[in-house]
């Protein structure tokens, strides 16, 4: 249990970190270390190991969703293509959208947060780490279920937003939509618990001295995002539960014949679905703020304005959902309100963009790959924002609703707004994850192929949409004249695929042979760079206290250290919410296999309930048993805890 090995020596350091605190590192990690071997890997509660596998899994789903997209582009590359039939095509676009939204975009942002946020706030682990392990397993099993369903020809086929009545019992025969509804349950359970963990980590586990105005901008974005998830995700859970009840036990929520309403589905779905766009986008903005600050070599301009913009975006995002429903019979006055709200939300986004421009303008820019991706983000997002303003206008929306114009718009916003900053973030934090830098030359190829490929793939879709090409058709006739632009678009899609392949090669190569990073290869300012790369179990030995917003850039930014915390049992310092003064110690949960076992029991319940409502009754028994096993303390633990106990 007790690993007595000394902390790994920091490799050759690319630049001296002048303000490294002159304290000796602890000689051992005590209760922070994992058990060895395979069982140890399955029972880890270290946020870094969980975060890393969360990131890798979400990226694997990104690749799978990308392969589905490539198949669709292959089919659409020429008119009257008979490569893929309509039934499979329906499953492909549904699974593609579902994967990208529920298995990639939201989870990977949370996964990055699970890794980075505790380090950035100077904590030794994430709050409720066993729950983090559970959240990861449940997410993984849900994703595997979706792809198992697709391979068995029961992949969902009613679109990623699964509108009723198409997805209801009358038209959605078989089990396809049930797999979709349960995938939602899996991913939402995972997303919700991670949000609670992030909020508690940010509220209560910050380093002493990290008052509210010293919280890094990325951490602010993750905080706002987590709050949004807490208030938005229950809507899709209630919706998908109602859908599966309609299909399984004959309720009538969405059945107009018995007093239900199909449109109720759209309200519930988009009450979640529009905020969802922002909880993909806001963490992207956090990456941008971090990377812009580091590579402009100065603190980001307008900290307070940016934080307030983030919070404003979080609120406005809940007032936009009806703009997805302009083509339905909602009242005209309501449409005007939602048009106005959709325009207003551009203001806080623009505020941030101007702050970043000011930062870059007045900084000393260092051109590295992460910053390239951020510049790509600017260009693509602005284009996506412009088409967003077009779509927010009701008359225009009615004209181009359900055409490829919308496909172009949403990919400009989501890939531009989230995936480009995400790739920038991969390049930026990879050295922290692995101790080695990603290769710069491959990185530039990766960026340029992605940037060019993206625009070649998606820009023509604007024109195709304006020419009237509808979404979600598996083929089109030659005399429509859509063939050439579709071919160009498909070529762009394969350029993106090549670029992602290069990224994977870069990761595989650099993880073994990349340049040694040392603690702080970019000369960055935040706390995660004040510990080794990769950080040891328990992150900070000893934990630090800060006295500045950019602790590694400011003289005296690292104001002190925390002594007197035990390593066995592992202990953490809890600080107050507003001004981060020390409140108490807390003994942290140790590694255990129970979260995995509980996740397996939960998976049996969720998948069983696709087929029979009794699975909820009988399936809850093993879930309860595993949760009790998880909670039940051992005699050893209790004695250990009592030894270090001080009553309040």
């Amino acid at each position, binding site marked *: 249990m007790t690993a007595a090995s000394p902390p790994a020596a920091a490799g050759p350091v690319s630049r001296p970190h002048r303000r490294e605190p002159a304290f000796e590192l602890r000689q051992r990690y005590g209760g922070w270390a994992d058990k060895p071997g395979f069982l140890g890997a399955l029972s880890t509660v270290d946020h870094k190991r969980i975060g890393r596998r969360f990131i890798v899994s979400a990226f694997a789903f990104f690749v799978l969703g990308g392969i589905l997209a490539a198949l669709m582009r292959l089919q659409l590359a020429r008119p009257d293509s008979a490569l893929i039939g309509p039934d499979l095509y329906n499953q492909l676009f549904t699974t593609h959208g579902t994967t990208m939204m529920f298995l990639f975009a939201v989870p990977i942002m949370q996964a990055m947060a699970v890794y980075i946020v505790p380090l950035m706030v100077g904590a030794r682990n994430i709050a409720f780490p066993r729950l983090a392990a559970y959240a990861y397993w449940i997410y993984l099993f849900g994703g595997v279920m979706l792809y198992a369903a697709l391979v068995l020809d029961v992949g969902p086929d009613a679109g990623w937003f699964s509108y009723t009545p198409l997805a209801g019992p009358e038209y959605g025969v078989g089990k396809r939509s049930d797999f979709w509804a349960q995938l939602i349950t899996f991913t939402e359970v995972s997303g919700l618990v991670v949000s609670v963990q992030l909020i508690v980590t940010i509220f209560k586990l910050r380093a002493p001295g990290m008052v509210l105005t010293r919280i890094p901008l990325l951490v602010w974005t993750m905080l706002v995002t987590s709050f949004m998830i807490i208030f938005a995700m*229950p809507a899709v859970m209630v919706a998908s539960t*109602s859908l599966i009840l309609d299909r399984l036990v004959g309720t009538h*929520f969405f059945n107009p014949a018995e007093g239900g309403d199909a449109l109720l589905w759209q309200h519930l779905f988009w009450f979640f679905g529009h905020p969802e766009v922002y909880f993909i986008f806001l963490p992207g903005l956090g990456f941008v703020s971090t990377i812009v600050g580091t590579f402009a070599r100065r603190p980001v301009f307008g900290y307070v304005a940016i934080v307030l913009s983030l919070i404003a975006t979080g609120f406005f995002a809940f007032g936009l959902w009806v703009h997805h429903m302009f083509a339905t019979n909602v009242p005209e006055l309501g449409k005007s309100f939602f048009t106005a709200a959709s325009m207003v939300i551009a203001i806080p986004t623009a505020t941030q963009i101007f702050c970043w421009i000011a930062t870059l303008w007045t900084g000393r820019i260092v051109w590295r790959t992460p910053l390239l991706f951020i510049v790509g983000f600017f260009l693509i997002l602005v284009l996506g924002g412009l088409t967003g303003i077009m779509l927010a206008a009701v008359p225009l929306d009615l004209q181009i609703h359900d055409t490829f114009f919308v496909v172009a718009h949403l990919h400009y916003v989501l890939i531009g707004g989230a995936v480009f900053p995400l790739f920038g973030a991969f390049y930026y934090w990879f050295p922290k994850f692995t101790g080695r830098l990603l290769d710069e030359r491959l990185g530039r190829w990766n960026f340029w192929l992605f940037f060019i490929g993206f625009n070649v793939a998606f820009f023509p879709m604007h024109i195709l949409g304006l020419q009237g090409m509808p979404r979600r058709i598996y083929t089109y006739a030659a005399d429509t004249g859509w063939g050439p632009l579709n071919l160009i678009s498909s070529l762009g899609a394969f350029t993106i695929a090549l670029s992602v392949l290069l990224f994977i090669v870069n990761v595989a190569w650099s993880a073994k042979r990349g340049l040694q990073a040392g603690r702080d290869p970019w000369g960055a300012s935040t706390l995660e760079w004040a510990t080794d790369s990769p950080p040891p179990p328990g992150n900070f030995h000893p934990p630090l206290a800060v006295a500045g917003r950019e602790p590694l850039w400011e003289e005296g930014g690292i104001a002190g250290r925390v002594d007197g915390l035990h390593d066995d049992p592992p202990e953490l310092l809890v600080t107050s919410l507003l001004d981060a003064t020390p409140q108490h*110690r807390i003994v942290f949960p140790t590694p255990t296999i129970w979260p995995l076992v509980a996740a397996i029991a939960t998976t049996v319940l969720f998948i069983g309930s696709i087929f029979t409502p009794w699975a909820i009754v009988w399936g809850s028994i093993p879930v309860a048993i595993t949760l009790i096993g998880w909670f*039940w303390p*051992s005699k050893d633990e209790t004695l250990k805890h009592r030894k270090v*106990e001080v009553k309040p």
Partner: protein
Amino acid sequence: MTAPVTPFADRPAVIDAAPLPSFAFGHKSLMWWGTLGMMAIEGMAFALAAVMYFYIWSRARAWPPDVLPPELRWGSLNLLILLVSTIPNEYTKRAAERFDLRGVRIGLVACILFGIAFIGVRALEFTTLNVYWDTNAYGSAVYLLLGLHTVHLVTDVADSVVLAVLMFTDRIEGSRFADASENAMYWYFVVAAWLPIYAILYLAPRWM
């Protein structure tokens, strides 16, 4: 409890955490915040289920459509039981916060007895709703609201049983008392959630 060293010194300062308490009650505790987060999520789910109820109502010509509203007696009895249960609940919370093991044991057992009583009455409630989940959309909405609340009742009583059993073993440490205090907070949430749900299911169809 005093904060030992100010972290704002201009040169490295040492914060000695050893004399600090090793757990805390209320808003200083991580689990208190975690519980609050779960309450926010579940409260949102309750609110949305209520929204669905009224949305379906807005689409109906009469309410309840073609059936009688749920009978008042069992639901109202449960309202009473839930309100009275806050007395042993508050007793448990206070006992926990003064580390009174005997008091916590007595309080938890009393809470569990109340819990069993209203799960029993809840079963009777389901028999007097005058509608089934598959009768019409109104019935579906009623079952969703009542079902959601019942899940919370059952899980909270199960939680309390586990905690109570633990309190009778030798696995007791100081932070168990914080657990008991937070368990009581969650029980207040389940009680508080019932007030609007009761009003929606039983009173609104009669008075609105």
